[in-house]
Every structure is written in C-alpha cells, then in structure tokens.
C-alpha cells in the first residue's frame, strides 16, 4: 500500500514538473538563426523581448569573457558587488590612490558593463575631477584622455548608446578646448600620436575631432538609437558649434588667411545645414496631436509666405483691417486709450498693464478680416488664406523662440562676418601686436594695435551689432587692455578720442559700470 502511494506521488510530481516545463519552454525557448535555407526561430517570449528591446549581449555590444566571468562569480549579487566597488572607488579617490581608483573603475565596468551611468559618470570623474588633482598640466592632460578612452571602452560594450559618443565629443571639444590650460592641452592633443593614431596632423584639432563625434551621435540617432536627456535642438547644434570654435581658436593660435577664412566658411555652411534639420518642438499639432516640426533656417520663409498671404487678404478689401482696428480702438476704455497713446518709456505701471491689455484687444486677426469681407463670395477663399497665414506666422514664431535658445541668428551672422577680409586682416594685425608685446617690442606692438583697431573700426561700422557683442569682440577688449599697458610702458596717455571708444563703453556697460569719458578707466582684470 505504502509503495503504491509513493509511486503515485512520484508520478504526480513528474506530471507537475512536465506541466511547469511547458510555460518555461514558452518563455525561455532560445532564438535560432536561419541556416542553409532553413528558417530560424524567433525563440520564446523572453528571446523575442530581448531582440525587440536590444537587450541581448550581442546586440548591446561586445561580449567580454572577463565581464561575464565576474558577473557569474558574483552569484547574483552583482548589485551588491557594484555598490561595494563604488564605495571603494570613492574611498580611493578621497585618499588620492589613483592606481587603485583606476583598477576599481575597471572592475565596476566588468560587473555592470551595460549601465551607462557607470561609463558616463566615471569618465567625467576621470577627465574633470581627477585630472584637476594633478599640478602638472601634462599629467592633467593624461587623465582627461583617460576619461575619454574610458568612454570609448564603454562604446564597445554599448553600441546603441549615443550618449557615450556625445560625451566623447564634449570631452574632446570642451574639456580640452575650454580648460584654463586650453592652449597647452590643445598642443598636447595635436602631438598625441597614441590617441590620434593615423589621423593627419591637419585634422588633429580637438574641436574638429569633437565635431566628428557629435556628427556620429547625430547619425546614430538618425539610425534609430535614443539619446536620453538631450533635446534635438541643442544636441544637433554641438557639431556646427565645434566648427565655429575651431575657426575661432585657429585665429587665437595665430592662423589667419585662407585657412581661417575657409574654417569660418565651413562653419557658416554647417550652421546653414543645421538650419535645415528637422527639429520636433514641444508644441503639438492641433489636428494630428504630433509634435510640430520646425527648421531653424525657415523663419524668413514663413514670414515671407505669411506676408504674401496677408497682402492677398488685404487686397480683397483694402482698408478693412484698419477699419476693424479703429473699431476695436473705439471700443477701448478711455484709460486704455490714454495708456496706448502714452510713449512706452513714459507709461506708469498701471498704464503698462492697460496698454498690454489694449494691444491684445485691438489686435485684428486675419480670420476676423476674412470674416468681415463685404464680398461674401470670396469669404471661403479668404478664410483659407487667413488660416494659412496664421499657420505660417505661428511657425515663424516657434522658430524664432527656438532660434533664441541657440542664438541662431547671431552665429549665422558671425560666421559670415568673420569670413570678411577686413576682419581677418584686423585680427591678424592685432595678433602681431600681441606677439610683439610678448617679445618686448613695444613700438611694434603699439603700431600693430593701432592698425588693427583701425581695421576693426571699419568692420564695426559695417556691422554695428558687433559693438556690444562681448563674445565676438572678447579678444578685442583684451587687446585694448594690452594696448593700454603698452602705452603705459611707453609713458604715453591713451588718446582722448580713442577709435574704439564705443566698444570700451559697451564693455563697461556690460560690467554694470557707467561709460567713462577716458579710456584709462577701462577695468583691468590684471590690475
């Protein structure tokens, strides 16, 4: 009796095991690839999900036996191991034990090779936080490169994470090109055969190399990879901005003439191309509920189209718009009318408020004009035109707001102005003045500065917006300070009618100071 019950129990167990194996098979059946004409299988649910979400190791990146060994050796305690290693890394960093810090980072990446924050944050740690711990700029440079190489290692394990490519571009361009020791870093970068490999010397500019990485990031996103935490507007601007910085730094390093001109021309072209890129906005299309897509370079086109359409509407009944406006104005309260009639700078606080309301109230929409047409037969056509005009205006307004974020118009103009022979020559002459000053040749320094300022005067007269533009004439302001020092050493006063006094005044204003009559009062950071 006992043995029979035991037998039955065993059979029940076997049946249960077999039953449990069924869902397990359904879930975990591995995928197979097609071989010799035989069709492959997509595998079970998990295999299909892995394939869909790019989660299998081969899809994520390289399979590293070391990493797999460590992952298995932690016996499911990978998270705990990673936590301990992060703690250890922090401790080594605090104690400035760089050899062990580096080794621990390698261990963390072996434990969590597909956790992007490990690569991203620790690369930042190496390039930005650890590098500055060193007093010798050559050692600092090495740690910056270590961080960049760390990111590149991360790419091997994570082939669909454009974030790493973007970080690489950012580190190479901005960390090397904008550090305090940018001059030394850029030189070391050019001479770094180990990092650059077979890259030609002419292309070994950190801004150009950084640009390539940004372009790679854009290409990855266009292929369907996702980049977290980066809006398309800014992240697409990084590459063209690198070209701008490349051109700018060429001049700072003393390269002018055709090379600099071509660099700026390239910057202009790339900025133009950036203007043609489709950028989804945060606004949604009312009909489709999909994000409105804009192109930064199309603002003028939309404005022109709107203008033409408005002209057509207005031509249907000339004077109607003005009439409607007058009607609306007449409907305003007396206080509102007074507020509107008062010049803006003389309005009181209350009047400003009233004027703002009044302006909104007297605004005549294209739709209103179309609806009030006397010729009813053209009303439908007018309403269609009004809608189109409003749409164009709306798009132009969206583009304008997005343009402001990246200073689109400014950089477009800057790239154009910088290509002008006059500005290139002025910059070159001032650079000669800087060199002469560095060599102690004060007479030549003064001469070159004066000639350079004359050149600048012509450029500023042609493009007056540059006068108050700190980023464009930053080096010019520095040169004026240098010129003042030269005169001081030559025991000469600053001229009363300084040729670039407007630049000095604008600079003082930007520093929150009143423009002075004399140039001597120009604030000097070195003073």
């Amino acid at each position, binding site marked *: 009796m006992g043995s029979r019950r035991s037998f039955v129990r065993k059979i029940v167990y076997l049946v249960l095991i077999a039953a449990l194996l069924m869902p397990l098979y359904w879930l975990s059946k591995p995928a197979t690839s097609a071989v010799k004409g035989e069709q492959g299988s997509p595998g079970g649910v998990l295999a299909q999900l892995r394939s869909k979400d790019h989660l299998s190791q081969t899809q994520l990146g390289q399979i590293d036996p070391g990493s797999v060994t460590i992952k298995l050796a932690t016996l499911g305690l990978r998270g705990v191991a990673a936590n301990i290693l992060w703690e250890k890394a922090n401790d080594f960093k605090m104690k400035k034990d760089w050899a062990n810090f580096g080794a621990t980072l390698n261990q963390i990446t072996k434990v969590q090779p597909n956790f992007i924050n490990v690569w991203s944050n620790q690369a930042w740690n190496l390039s930005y936080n650890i590098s500055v711990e060193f*007093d*010798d700029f050559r050692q600092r440079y090495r740690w910056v490169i270590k961080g960049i190489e760390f990111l590149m290692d991360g790419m091997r394990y994570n082939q669909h994470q454009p974030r790493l490519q973007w970080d690489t571009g950012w580190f190479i361009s901005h960390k090397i090109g904008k550090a305090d020791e940018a001059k*030394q870093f850029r030189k070391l970068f050019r001479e770094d055969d*180990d990092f650059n490999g077979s890259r030609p010397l002419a292309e070994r500019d950190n801004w150009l190399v950084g640009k390539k990485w940004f372009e790679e990031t854009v290409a990855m996103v266009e292929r369907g990879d996702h980049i977290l935490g980066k809006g398309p507007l800014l992240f697409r601007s990084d590459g063209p901005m690198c070209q701008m910085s490349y051109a700018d730094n060429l001049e700072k390093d003393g390269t002018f003439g055709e090379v600099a001109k071509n660099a700026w021309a390239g910057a202009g072209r790339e900025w133009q191309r950036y203007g043609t890129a489709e950028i989804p906005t945060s606004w949604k299309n009312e009909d489709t509920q999909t994000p409105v897509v804009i192109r930064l370079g199309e603002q003028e086109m939309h404005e022109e189209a709107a203008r033409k359409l408005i002209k057509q509407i207005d031509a249907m009944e000339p004077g109607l718009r003005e009439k409607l406006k007058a009607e609306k104005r007449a409907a305003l309260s007396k206080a509102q009318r007074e507020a509107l009639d008062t010049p803006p700078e003389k309005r009181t606080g209350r009047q400003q408020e009233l004027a703002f309301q009044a302006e909104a109230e007297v605004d005549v929409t294209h739709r209103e004009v179309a609806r009030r047409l006397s010729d009813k037969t053209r009303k439908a056509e007018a309403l269609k035109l009004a809608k189109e005009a409003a749409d164009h205006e709306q798009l132009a307004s969206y583009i304008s707001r997005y343009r402001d974020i990246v200073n689109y118009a400014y950089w477009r103009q800057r790239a154009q102005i910088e290509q002008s022979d006059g500005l290139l020559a002025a910059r070159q002459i001032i650079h000669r003045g800087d060199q002469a000053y560095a060599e102690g040749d004060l007479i030549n320094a003064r001469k070159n500065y004066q000639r350079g300022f004359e050149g600048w005067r012509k450029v500023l007269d042609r493009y007056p917006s540059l006068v108050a533009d700190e980023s464009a004439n930053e080096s010019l302001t520095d040169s004026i300070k240098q010129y003042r020092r030269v005169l001081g050493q030559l025991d000469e006063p600053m001229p009363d009618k300084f040729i670039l006094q407007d630049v000095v005044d604008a600079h003082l204003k930007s520093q929150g100071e009143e423009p002075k009559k004399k140039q001597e009062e120009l604030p000097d950071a070195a003073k």
Partner: protein
Amino acid sequence: MVIDPKDVVPFLTWLLPALGSWLLVVMGVCVVVTAFGWLVAAMRHGPIRAFSITSHVFRNAWGDLVRMSPQRIWALARLAIHESIRRRVVVVFGVFIVVLLFAGWFLDPGSVDPARLYLDFVLTATSYLVLLLALFLSSLSLPTDLKNRTMYTVVTKPVRASEIVLGRIVGFMAVGTMLLVVMGAISYVFVERGLAHTHQLSADDLQPVEGSTPGQPATLQGKTSLVHQHRHKVIVTPSGQTSVETEQGHIHALTILKDGDKVSYKLGPAEGMLVARVPVYGKLTFRDRKGQLAAKGVNVGDEWTYRSFIEGGTLAACVWTFEGITPKQFPNGLPVEMNIEVFRTYKGEITKGVPGSLSVRNPSKPDNKPVEVRIFESKEFVPNSQHIPTQFQMPNGKRADLFRDFVDNGRIELWLQCVAPQQYFGAAQADLYLRAQNASFAWNFAKGYFGIWLQMLLIVVLGVLFSTFLSGPVAMLATLGALLGGFFNDFMYRLATGQTYGGGPFESLIRLWTQQNQTSPMEPGLQTTTAKALDQVAEYFLLGMSTILPDFSHFSFADYVACGFNISSDTLLTFTCRALAFALPVFLAAYFCLKNREIGK
C-alpha cells in the same frame, strides 16, 4: 602610501612597554580563569577541595606543557598534513593557478602604477586563498576526527592534549607554509614576467630640440615605441649623454650603439618598478605662518585629513627631525625623497610647478635660522628626489659642512617650505624620508608573504581553539567571525567609540529602514531611546571584541611591497611578536578546552 606613524617605531622601543602590557593582560586573564575554575570546583566540591583540584589542574597543565615531546608533536603534525592532503589542499593551489591565468583580463598594464596593481593582486589573492584554507582545515579537523572516532586511535596512545593541539597547529602551518612558498614563487615569476618589457627607439624617432642651429650638433629628443600603453621621453645630448623620463614609476637604460656613421639605440629592461626602498623616517612637526610651533598645518578643504598644508611665502614649514644620521651611513650627503601635495589658490604659471625649498637646521641650535640648501619645483604623486650635499655654500657666502654644522648627535632638522605666496604644500610624516639604499626586492617580496604566514598562524590557532569545544560548522563560523572581526577591527573600534556616522548598530538599522541620513538627529521617543540603549550594550561588546581580536589588516605587508618600500626588520619583529603573543594564550586556551573534554583526559 599611507603609513601610520605608530608603525614606524623601533622594535626595542616598542617591545618593553608592549611586553609589560602583555604580561599584565595575560596575568589578569590567568587570575580570572583560575578564580572562575576555583569557583566552579568550590560549588561542586567545597572551597578546600576546590583549591586542591585547581592546583592539580595547573600541575597537570604544567606537566603537559613542559613535557611535550617534539617527536610526538611531529608525528601528530604529520597526521594533520596527511589529513590536509586527503582533504584536497591541492584544490586551493589549482584555484590559485586558474586565478593567475585569467588575471591578465583584469590587470591593466597601462595603469599609473602597474607594479602596485600586480603586487597588490598576487598578495591579496594568495592571502584570501590561504586564509580560507587555514580556516577550513583548522576548524573542521578535530570535530571531524571526533565524529569519525579516528581521534580515539590517537588518544589511546600516550599523547598529551597539549601535543594534540600543537601537533595540529604545526601540521596545518606546515601545509600552509608549503603552499605559501609555492604560491610565492609562482607569483614572483608572474609579476616579473607580467611587468617585464622594453621599448624600441630608432634614430628617426629623435628630432633636434627647438632652437637648434642647423648644421651644428644638436640635442635630440623624441619618444620610444608604445609598449604597455606608455612611451618614455628621451633626450640625447651632442656629447652622448642620455636621459629617459620616468613613466609608470620606471625608466630604461639607454645605450647608443655606433657602427661607423650609423647610430642606433637600445633600451634596457624596466628599472625601478620592482624596488624595495629603505626609508629613514623623521618626526614631523609644523610651523605656522609666523614661524611658531603648531600642532598641524592648514586644512585646505580636503575631506581626507592625512596631510596637513603649509602656506607659501610665509614662515610656515614642515619640519622633519631625523635621528641616527651619520657620515658613515650617508657619505655623499642626504638623499631626500618627497611625496608632497600641492594646493593652488590661484592658477599661477600653468606650465611650471610651484617652487619650494629644503633647508637644514641643527636641532641643538633652535635660535639659528634654517639654511636653505635646495630650491625645487613641485611634483605631485611621484617621488621627488632631492640631494643635500655634505659641503655647500650658505647664503652668507661661507662654506658649510652638513655633518659638522647641522648634525648634532645624529640629529638633524629638514625644513620644507613653499616659496610661492598663497600657494600651499601638503605633507604627512611619511611623505619625506631619506632614501638610504635599496633592499632586495625578492627578499622584500618574501617578507610580504611572511605577513600572510603570520595571518595564517592567527587563523590556525583560532580555528584549532574553536574546534576543541565546538562542532565543525559552528567552529568554522566562529573562526570566520574572528577573521572578519579581525579584518574590520578598526571599524569595530570606531563604531564602539562613537567615531562613525549614523550611531551604533541598532540606530543605523533604524536609519536604514526609515531611509534617514546619517547625520540628522533621531526623533526623540521610545524607539530612539531603546535603540540607543541597545547600542550601548552592543558597543561594549564591540569594544571587547576589537580589543581581543588581532587587527588582521595590520599584519598585511602588501602595501609596503606594492608601493616599493622595504619592510623593516623592526616592523617584521614587532608583528611576529604580536602574532606569537596572541597565538600563545590561544594555544593554552585550546589546550585547556581540549583537556576539559572527556577525550582529552
């Protein structure tokens, strides 16, 4: 490398007070144990008979300990060795080999200090494996013998309990020693081969330095080939002098080979990677910006307060006082090596280090001003070598003799100052030393393994002790607990003395559970009061444990070997004595525990 000044004490200076404390503790424990034994006996047999029983136990113990036979101990030790071999000790060796085979996946030869990584790795891997083996062997052996009744075949022979205990210890130590020797030899070859490399340098790699006159012999400079992710900068002067820049803590000798007009270059093997510097440490004091004695320097905001900083352009200084300095020991002057840290409050000259000065002063003439001997440019995280000659010119133009004018009874003061105003130098006691000579690296490596041997001894005696009165798994857990407690000894002590954030174990548990940070005060209430009360009890326990258990991490000399510092005979003797001082009472305790069991009688 971080060196605790307490570890840099001459052996004899340490020995006498340490011996006194040890004797005091041992005697105290003896008295307590005797009193306890008497009390137990008195409760069972009355106080008078208890005296007789207690004295009988001691007489027996004395006999057992004094009359131990080396032959019998060795016989028992051999038994333990055979048993260990039966228990597949060789598996540990196999694991070690597998670990070494795949170590290349995880060791980065391009690290800033690859020698340190390699040495750290082999010493740590060996230490973990050997300690685990010692733990298993020592804690499971006796209980298994008792369970299998094989022990009865031993105790029926005329052997003493003390011999059984000592035999086990000797046997397991012999097995561990053999394993350590083999592992050490393999590790040495692994490190040597892993780090061995040289570079190539061709004439095309060298270019005249900037500013050379065409047609004139020029100084050449260039870089070697890339090996182990680094290159060395090389300079060759027209007179044939060569210099190879240090990279990853080593250099290579450069030989110029001439065959007619053809010049070729040959670089030798890496030098300076595997070294054992013999440092002579001084005692560090600080002077503040007015030149007054100060307890320490300035904190520049570093979280880690190991180093203290001095302000440049002021009278602030780090002053090291050295003792026992003789012309015989340093016939060519003082070879100073520094690892100082730099803190800049302004950018200054980016391309140059911060200037500093080294001065000397006779300690017996405190009114004299220190005399500046060297001006140097700072280097960080690499040893900065400076040489103080025996003869030099003083600022007043007079010639000075180092030993005659500045050394008094072997004592001399070395003053480190930062010259640049508003820039700072940071240093700790071990950051400046006199590099007397280089000891043999292989011998230093062996000393590093001796540290593991001492750790193994501690584990074996503890394992044997626990196995005399606990069952196998429990003895193993107890030994493991002692091992972990020993490794976290310092943490336990800080926890027990309230030097950690987040309170004691119970308070921390509440903070963990309620996700509170470590520093904000706990909400007053019953829960907090209870937790704090429980913590107080736990803290007494932790304090007791941290006092009883040896600090295992201190017995590891891996840092010394990995950082290229010789393990001094003082350190070696001190820690050997510490290990023996712990092992002896534990052995006695193990003897009494075994004796107390039926089998031991």
